[in-house]
């Protein structure tokens, strides 16, 4: 006798219990702490903050621990929490020109005011697995020098003084910056929303799209004008006191791409820009973002839109890994009733096909 499938509730409880057990792993191995994750897996924490759109190292570390190191799952946890937070308002625009720079490089000029500062980078390491790290290795303390000048002019500002690069659009106090987490997105989208979408977008997706633009699918001749990493002050304009109150500082990575020039009979030619910005140290992300931002400006700059990276609807509709993973993985959910409906249709079509074939005069003739 058949009894309809039951017991889903207990199955879920047991699955959660097993998951918690697996998350802990071998109980003889010491448990990893949030401080350890935050300090020693700091780039993972940065990515979760950036794509989770929430600047909180501790919560990001918790999410990574809870997600067993699955980055998209961790990003999802942070996003779901962020969605419940009340909004008090928006901060003043941060000034990356006044960043306390820890790393700053330009590939367009050999030397720049303030100098090239390599900072903590994998760039010139040899990728040889280091057995020393396996157990209790204590690295040397970092070398120190005189503090760098308080402010470093952005390379794009230097180019801008001579009109060699298009000016950055300045903020308009009358039109507030859009927020796609509060207003439904509609197309065509303005650049503020595009940049917000890209800032939250999956790093791998942006990397592939940026890469495709370099390989000719929407080529835009990029130069890394400047990449800078450091701390910027965050200020909030408090109505009560009538001035901007400092809230603290956050770590940001900014990438300014200098791209192929435009010009016309009436306009002198100048370089164009692509822009990338992310929480934490996220260089691959911000560089990819800048490439894709520039590619998405194709229409605005009078270029033909041919490649995926230039296609706003394609990019923005598929860049969010929380959305993407949800919909891909939802195929795990039961689809019995739809499948049954398809099965019924397919059986009917096959039956009709067989009947038609059996009674076909052509077939008889061939035999």
């Amino acid at each position, binding site marked *: *006798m*058949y*009894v*309809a*499938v*039951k*017991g*889903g*509730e207990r*199955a*879920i409880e047991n699955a959660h219990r097993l998951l918690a057990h697996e998350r802990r792993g071998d109980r003889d191995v010491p448990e990893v702490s949030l401080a350890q994750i935050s300090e020693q897996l700091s780039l993972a924490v940065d990515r979760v903050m950036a794509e989770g759109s929430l600047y*909180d190292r*501790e*919560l990001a570390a*918790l999410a990574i621990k809870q997600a067993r190191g699955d980055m998209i799952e961790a990003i*999802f946890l942070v*996003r*779901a*929490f*962020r*969605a*419940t937070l*009340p909004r008090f308002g928006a901060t003043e625009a941060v000034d990356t020109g006044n960043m306390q720079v820890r790393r700053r490089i330009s590939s367009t000029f050999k030397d720049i005011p303030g100098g090239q500062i390599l900072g903590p980078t994998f760039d010139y390491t040899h990728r040889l697995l280091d057995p020393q790290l396996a157990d209790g290795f204590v690295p040397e303390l970092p070398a120190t020098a005189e503090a760098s000048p308080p402010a470093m002019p952005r390379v794009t500002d230097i180019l801008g003084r001579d009109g060699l690069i298009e000016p950055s659009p300045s903020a308009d106090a009358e039109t507030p910056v859009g927020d796609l*987490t*509060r*207003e*439904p*997105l*509609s*197309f*065509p989208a303005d650049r503020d929303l595009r940049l917000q979408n890209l800032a939250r977008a999956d790093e791998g997706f942006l990397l592939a799209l940026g890469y495709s633009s370099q390989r000719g699918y929407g080529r835009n001749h990029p130069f890394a004008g400047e990449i800078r990493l450091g701390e910027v002050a965050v200020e909030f304009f408090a109505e009560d006191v009538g001035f901007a109150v400092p809230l603290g500082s956050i770590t940001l990575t900014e990438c300014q791409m200098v791209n192929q020039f435009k010009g016309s009979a009436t306009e002198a030619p100048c370089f164009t820009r692509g822009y990338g910005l992310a929480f934490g140290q996220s260089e691959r992300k911000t560089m990819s973002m800048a490439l894709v931002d520039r590619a998405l400006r194709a229409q605005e700059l009078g270029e033909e839109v041919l490649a995926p990276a230039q296609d706003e*609807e394609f990019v923005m*509709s598929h860049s969010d890994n*929380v*959305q993407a*993973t*949800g*919909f*891909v*993985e*939802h195929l795990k*959910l*039961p*689809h*019995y*009733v*739809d499948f*049954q*409906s*398809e*099965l*019924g*249709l397919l059986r*009917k*079509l096959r039956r*009709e096909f067989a009947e038609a074939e059996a009674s076909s005069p052509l077939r008889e003739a061939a035999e």
Partner: protein
Amino acid sequence: MNAPAYNFAYLDEQTKRMIRRAILKAIAIPGYQVPFASREMPMPYGWGTGGVQVTAAILGPADVLKVIDQGSDDTTNAISIRKFFAKTAGVATTTATADATVIQTRHRIPEAPLHGGQVLVYQVPIPEPLRFLEPRETETRRMHALGEYGLMHVKLYEDIARFGHIATSYAYPVKVNARYVMDPSPTPKFDNPKMDNCPALQLFGAGREKRIYAIPPYTSVVSLDFEDHPFTRYRFDAPCALCGADDSYLDEIVTDDQGGRMFVCSDTDYCETRQGQGHRGTEAAAPHKERPHG
């Protein structure tokens, strides 16, 4: 650490108000997809976040909630969503279709007729019926605005030319209130006629795609077809093996690897109610007990 604290039915009141506005607009324009600022929910996109947000926005403390997936109250995702609202809203839950004031569903419409005052909330993966004919949102919105549905009819016609039948067996497109072509969510087309002139309010939530749409009570809902190829329902031609019903949609159960099959009601509440009334199918012995849901 910022310890989380949550509102009644999880969402904050500002978000609920925003969703209710979208719902009201959707009811005012039957079948029209209203964009709304969908939130990240604590379950993944594709798991019913649109339906969950609609339910959260309309749920009151006195409501009685039923959640089904594939017609069943006991599928894992239905249990998970029911528990979510039992926990965050503390509302009463039920498996009885007639007793529920709000029914959230994935892929089915209950067999028992719905009555006035009930709300059926559908979970919708792809709200745009024209999406697979035209991938661009900018284009499909224009097509809806102009009532330009020729492409859909061509698709249905091509099915007939190729297969002799309209080869859409679920998510079968309908026209609502003689104006908007609408995706009924991936319910089998067997359920389509239940949407027409239904006394209950039908709300559709698509979280990932950020759209809400609605069919107000007693609204005309017509499945698209042709005069010489009229719309037909599909149902496996057998009575339910457990309750003997010959009018319900059936799940096919594979019983062995020798080609053994049996067919039972996909709507578990309908099947259990009938068994409780003494109806029996070929396979039925004692009606199985539904455990109380937490």
